[in-house]
């Protein structure tokens, strides 16, 4: 564990030095890499805190029974529709779907529902989808959505079965 941490710190330091050196010497590849890095870093200080504050509020205000009833083991097939709609509003990137999925799982949602949520946030975030349709055509986007969503639900159910058969539980990481 400790060794890993030291390696990580060294890598981050080297990376930082490389970026700083690139800026001082006008080394184009380094500047390009730095720009991408700072783009994502700006997410970190704008979008991400908002998402986590909303998750915190969700945790204290929403009752466990409510989540269990609509997204839990005994919920109807509609639960998949709810999480797909929720996924449509995902902001940032897929990486932000993970803490959201984790939070609703901890509140009693079933595994297949959270897998569907993650899959759907990958393929049908609304801003991204409209962007896609404008560059690649509506037909392309429709095919992608109509084929991927049923597959996501089916594979989520299979994964749930597979993991449940092995007494799986997501531990507090």
């Amino acid at each position: 564990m400790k060794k890993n941490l030291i390696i990580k710190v060294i890598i981050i330091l080297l990376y930082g030095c490389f970026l700083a050196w690139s800026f001082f010497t006008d080394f184009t590849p380094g500047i390009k890499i730095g720009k991408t890095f700072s783009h994502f870093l700006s997410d970190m200080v704008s979008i991400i805190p908002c998402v986590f504050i909303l998750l915190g509020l969700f945790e204290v205000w929403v009752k466990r029974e409510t989540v269990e009833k609509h997204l839990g083991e005994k919920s109807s097939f509609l639960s998949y529709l709810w999480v797909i709609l929720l996924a449509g509003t995902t902001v940032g990137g897929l990486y932000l779907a993970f803490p959201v999925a984790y939070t609703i799982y901890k509140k009693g949602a079933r595994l297949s529902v959270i897998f569907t949520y993650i899959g759907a946030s990958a393929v049908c975030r609304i801003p991204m989808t409209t962007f896609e349709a404008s560059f690649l055509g509506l037909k392309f986007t429709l095919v992608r959505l109509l084929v991927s969503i049923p597959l996501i639900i089916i594979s989520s159910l299979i994964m749930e079965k597979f993991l449940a058969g092995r007494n799986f539980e997501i531990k507090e990481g």
Partner: protein
Amino acid sequence: MKILFILTAACVIASFVKDRKKTKQAFKKAFKKFEKMVPPFFTMIIAISIVLYFLSDEALLKILDNDNRLLSVILASLLGSVSFMPGFITYPLCGLLLQKGVTYTVLSAFTTTLMMVGVLTYPVEKAYFGNRVTIIRNLAGFATALIVALATGLVFGELMQ
């Protein structure tokens, strides 16, 4: 973006008016979750910034505009799996690739794996769901993406040519 800020502010204010203590608690929980996300997030964005540099428009065009259709679909799905791009870079780029003659099938394989399979988001996903789930989910995503690409090829009549 703006909507997110307004929504968050509105929720915080409503919560604060209703119950100060609970709101404080929510912030504590939010901070704890945020803290957990920071290290894997850093690993992720360092990796992304390096990979994106090597995936220039020209490099992608060279790889994806291949006469061997099967090979280009396989390469597209592998490239999509190991990279991560925000939508505002991906789609204009795909529009450009389309104009240069890259097929819809290949673009579908590329964009779908790009979205569903995350080798670069692996540190973040692992932090929440552990190794095994992360690997299984990504494999399922990869299979889904291949089927989607196949369906796209059928619909656009690119498979029979």
